[in-house]
């Protein structure tokens, strides 16, 4: 057993997801990228395999696995289709894992089994039209009125916010501030499609990459949310948000690993077969540099990510610095490896058929979503400034 597969179950998980990704996910990737559409049927198959609730307890229909398992699933799926995998991440990590860790018994019973089966598609809403990196600058508000809350505001860039051009996703964890509450006191609510005042603002079209994952703006206009759907206490959600962002960053970084692995495989294969001036491309030093550096950087990112995943506890914060570090390193690494793959393939790399063009477009998002690289740099430096020595 290795760092990447600490137990036999992890090894079997990787084998299973890889086989599924190669047989079922890869063949549909290009078409859904082109048509900017979400593959709901394929998504539901992830439910049958137990992947939608990978870190959720078995009593709620999940598989009860750990952070390493979550990394494996995201890495293997992203090697075939990062866009599809982003929708998987928003559902399984941002919604299911978040609610499993932070919800009460009644909320878990009501929402998790359906989400684990893929009957309900979930997502999470932090970002707003006017506030991204400045998370606490969000302006969506909540006020209590009797047995319910009233939400007002808009959320932007919400993955799984729509499952088609006109149809909302099913259920969301929405962060908002109680009217008049302090800047760092956020609250979280479960909002379902069909709640009064909850509307699809727009499905966001024409993304550079991740086109197989639907992204939407969601609008809350006097949206009525039952009090039983408040997760945790009023003002207590900032902490669970920070905790859940750790697994989000780690699994986003794992997607970059999947992209990088695929790109290394493709450029390695191509450079062996393609000849120029009478020799295979991989005999030339400049090409060797592309291949060897890509592989080494991929392995370095992989070792960092799995080392952090191995010590991560899903029910406790504590890996902020290193989950930022993993995503900072892996996201840019994935993009650069994809870029080198295009370079090694020359003109063939620039068109869809050889896949690296799509992976390159998808790789870019990981420098932005779930925290920009600048945000990781800012947060890491703040955390590091409190340390004198590194252990």
């Amino acid at each position, binding site marked *: 057993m290795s760092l990447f597969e600490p137990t*036999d*179950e992890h*090894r*079997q*998980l990787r084998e299973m997801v890889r*086989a599924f990704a190669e047989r079922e996910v890869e063949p549909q990737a290009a078409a859904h990228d082109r048509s900017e559409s979400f593959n709901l049927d394929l998504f539901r198959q992830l439910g049958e*395999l*137990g*992947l939608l609730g990978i870190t959720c307890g078995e009593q709620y229909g999940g598989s*009860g696995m750990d952070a390493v398992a979550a990394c494996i699933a995201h890495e293997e799926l992203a090697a075939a289709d990062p866009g599809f995998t982003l929708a998987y991440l928003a559902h399984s990590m941002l919604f299911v894992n978040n609610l499993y860790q932070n919800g009460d018994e009644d909320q878990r019973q009501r929402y998790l089994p359906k989400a684990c089966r893929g009957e309900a598609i979930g997502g999470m809403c932090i970002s707003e039209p006017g506030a991204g990196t400045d998370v606490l600058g969000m302006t969506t508000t909540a006020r209590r009125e009797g047995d319910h809350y009233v939400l007002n505001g808009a959320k932007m860039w919400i993955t799984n916010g729509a499952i088609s051009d006109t149809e909302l996703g099913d259920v969301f964890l929405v962060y908002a501030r109680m009217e008049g509450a302090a800047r760092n006191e956020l609250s979280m609510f479960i909002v379902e499609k069909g709640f009064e005042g909850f509307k699809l603002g727009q499905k966001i079209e024409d993304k550079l990459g991740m086109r197989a994952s639907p992204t939407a703006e969601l609008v809350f206009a006097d949206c009525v949310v039952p009090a039983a759907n408040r997760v945790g206490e009023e003002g207590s959600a900032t902490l669970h948000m920070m905790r859940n962002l750790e697994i989000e960053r780690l699994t986003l970084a794992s997607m970059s690993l999947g992209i990088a692995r695929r790109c290394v495989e493709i450029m390695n294969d191509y450079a062996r077969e393609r000849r120029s001036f009478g020799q295979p491309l991989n005999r030339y030093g400049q090409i060797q540099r592309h291949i060897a550096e890509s592989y080494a950087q991929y392995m370095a990112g992989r070792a960092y990510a799995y080392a952090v995943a191995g010590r991560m506890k899903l029910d406790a914060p504590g890996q902020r610095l290193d989950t930022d570090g993993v995503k900072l390193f892996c996201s840019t690494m994935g993009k650069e490896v994809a870029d080198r793959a295009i370079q090694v393939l020359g003109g063939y790399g620039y068109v869809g058929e050889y896949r690296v063009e799509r992976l390159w477009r998808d790789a870019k998002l990981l420098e932005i979503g779930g925290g920009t690289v600048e945000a990781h740099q800012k947060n890491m430096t703040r955390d590091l400034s409190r340390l004198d020595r590194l252990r």
Partner: protein
Amino acid sequence: MKILVPVKRVADPDNANKVKVSDDGTKVTSDGLEWKMNPFDEWSLEAALRLTEDVSKKGMKGDDGKPLDRIGEVVLVSIGPKDAVQTIRQGLAMGAERGILVEAEDSSLDSHVVAQVLAAVAQKENPDIVFLGKQSADGDSNVAGTKLAEMLGWPLVNYATSIRTEPGSDTLTVTRALDGGVQTIEVKMPCVLTSTDRILHPESVKNGVTPEDHKYPESEGGRYASLKGIMAAKKKPLEETTLEALGVTPKRTEEYVKFALPPAREGKATVVESVDELVEKLHSEAKVL
């Protein structure tokens, strides 16, 4: 119904082009390749699982915690080194109930010895069916099933494309694809079967319990192990035994003398102007028409 399914690990057949012949030509090396379950065995395992399940009770459990969707037993057997346990675990994760590893060096086996071992296991286990892959993706010999049936004195149907039975019946209705049409055979159990990929078709297996109109998903292989299946497989019984313990004295009938790669293909491409010209060339030059 009890079905014995032999499973072999083979070097990843999707990367068969990376299989090399050792410098001295005495063996085929598969260094650096991943081990996979022989895909032909996977087809037969899938069919065996379909024969022994009730899809209408999928995921349901009885008061004793036993799954209600399993109405028979699938026993996996693999002959090989300790590592072959991983292949058995994969089959258990897909849904089989238990596994048997017969420890042996890969190099000490040929189809005859494999058939001897399987016959010994079958005599001990008394299954209704031994369901093999028609061949293995590495050796491609295509004889173990036939030898096994001969040794056991059981009826044999090779290359099954569909199977139908009823609960409590001792007969299977099996079809095979022949050049000129479809052959339908009634076979009494216990028997030996092998399959083709058509056995994976959505409606190829009917056991009289799973609703008649149920369609399995289109697939190129067996079902995927779910995470539940992977977790459950940890707790399923896996027995390890040896040739001696089974009372088998291996009698090899094949010796491999030498391996060599086929000569590199030669050929040239000619662009023809019309279909007529193509037909003419296929006739006069290629002499294939």
